[in-house]
């Protein structure tokens, strides 16, 4: 079909409190301030999304910047949000995030032109029409998938992390 590119996919993983804490520490925030910031946003759940192109041979190629998804419940309960999520509903959320800015005007579900240019910069020549015909899959990191199918609680991950962060801050 398109020769070298055989599929497109997005990988979704949750951003744990400890990842956010460590990100802030790397940016130079003092431990107490980083802890405070993480705790202030503890009612919101976050995930990262990264898109790739699958090559017939060789490693997958990152297509776009890492994006971030967030959700805040009117009940203020983060665990309630996880309980109501499933692989299907999270897939819809990922597809919402990766929509192009002009999706309502263009009707496109993905920024094909941006993908074409990104692949061209990697030495791969492919057209937008070629890419439209490829499967686009959404994959989940194992720890997120476990939460989405109810095998583990998102709150457990968060609580474990928050306890760890507080221990580090002491």
């Amino acid at each position: 079909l398109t020769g070298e590119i055989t599929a497109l996919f997005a990988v979704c993983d949750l951003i744990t409190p400890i990842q956010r804490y460590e990100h802030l520490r790397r940016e130079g925030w003092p431990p107490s301030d980083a802890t405070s910031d993480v705790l202030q946003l503890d009612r919101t759940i976050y995930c990262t999304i990264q898109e790739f192109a699958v090559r017939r041979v060789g490693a997958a190629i990152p297509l776009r910047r890492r994006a971030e998804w967030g959700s805040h419940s009117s009940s203020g309960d983060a665990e309630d949000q996880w309980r109501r999520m499933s692989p299907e509903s999270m897939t819809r959320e990922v597809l919402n995030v990766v929509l192009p800015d002009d999706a309502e005007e263009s009707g496109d579900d993905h920024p094909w032109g941006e993908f074409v240019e990104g692949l061209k910069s990697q030495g791969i020549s492919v057209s937008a029409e070629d890419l439209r015909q490829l499967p686009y899959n959404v994959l989940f990191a194992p720890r997120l998938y476990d939460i989405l199918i109810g095998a583990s609680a998102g709150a457990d991950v968060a609580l474990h992390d928050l306890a760890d962060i507080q221990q580090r801050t002491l």
Partner: protein
Amino acid sequence: MKARFILLLAAVATLVATTLISPSFATAQTPASPSAVEPHPAIAPPGANAPSATPADTYCVFYTRFDDVHWSSTAGDVSGHGWWDNGDCPAGTKANITTRLDEYYSDGSWKTKNTGTKKNAYAGGGSANRANARVTCQGSNTVSWRTETDIDLIGISDTNNIGRSATYNLPCSVN
């Protein structure tokens, strides 16, 4: 003797000049520029993005969904989006969505640089049911940005429930 007097005079003159003139140089090098006085776009310190709204009772549960501030597919722009999903609100409920792009200022304030709205949006998102806020960068200074999304259910009372992204620093400033 005369030469020694001249040398002494020169040394005194140099000392006086150093004492009297240097402070004026120092002052001249640190002027009170407008940027030091007026609030300007800056990088947010810890805690500047704390949630202002606290959870409260609502008649039904819904979820405010959003992405982070990111480079737009339109070169030189940054954008952010907001949509919503239903928890246990009546089926068919619609909402007005407001998404703001906020830039952090050196006086500790967040200033909204663009607001995107979507009226009568169904739950679940998609290109037809999301608000899009976008702004064109005017400078390349690295400053802090965030999105805020407010969902106003139509015909149903709800709280001022703001979904707020984490703060991200981007080389994009808007004055």
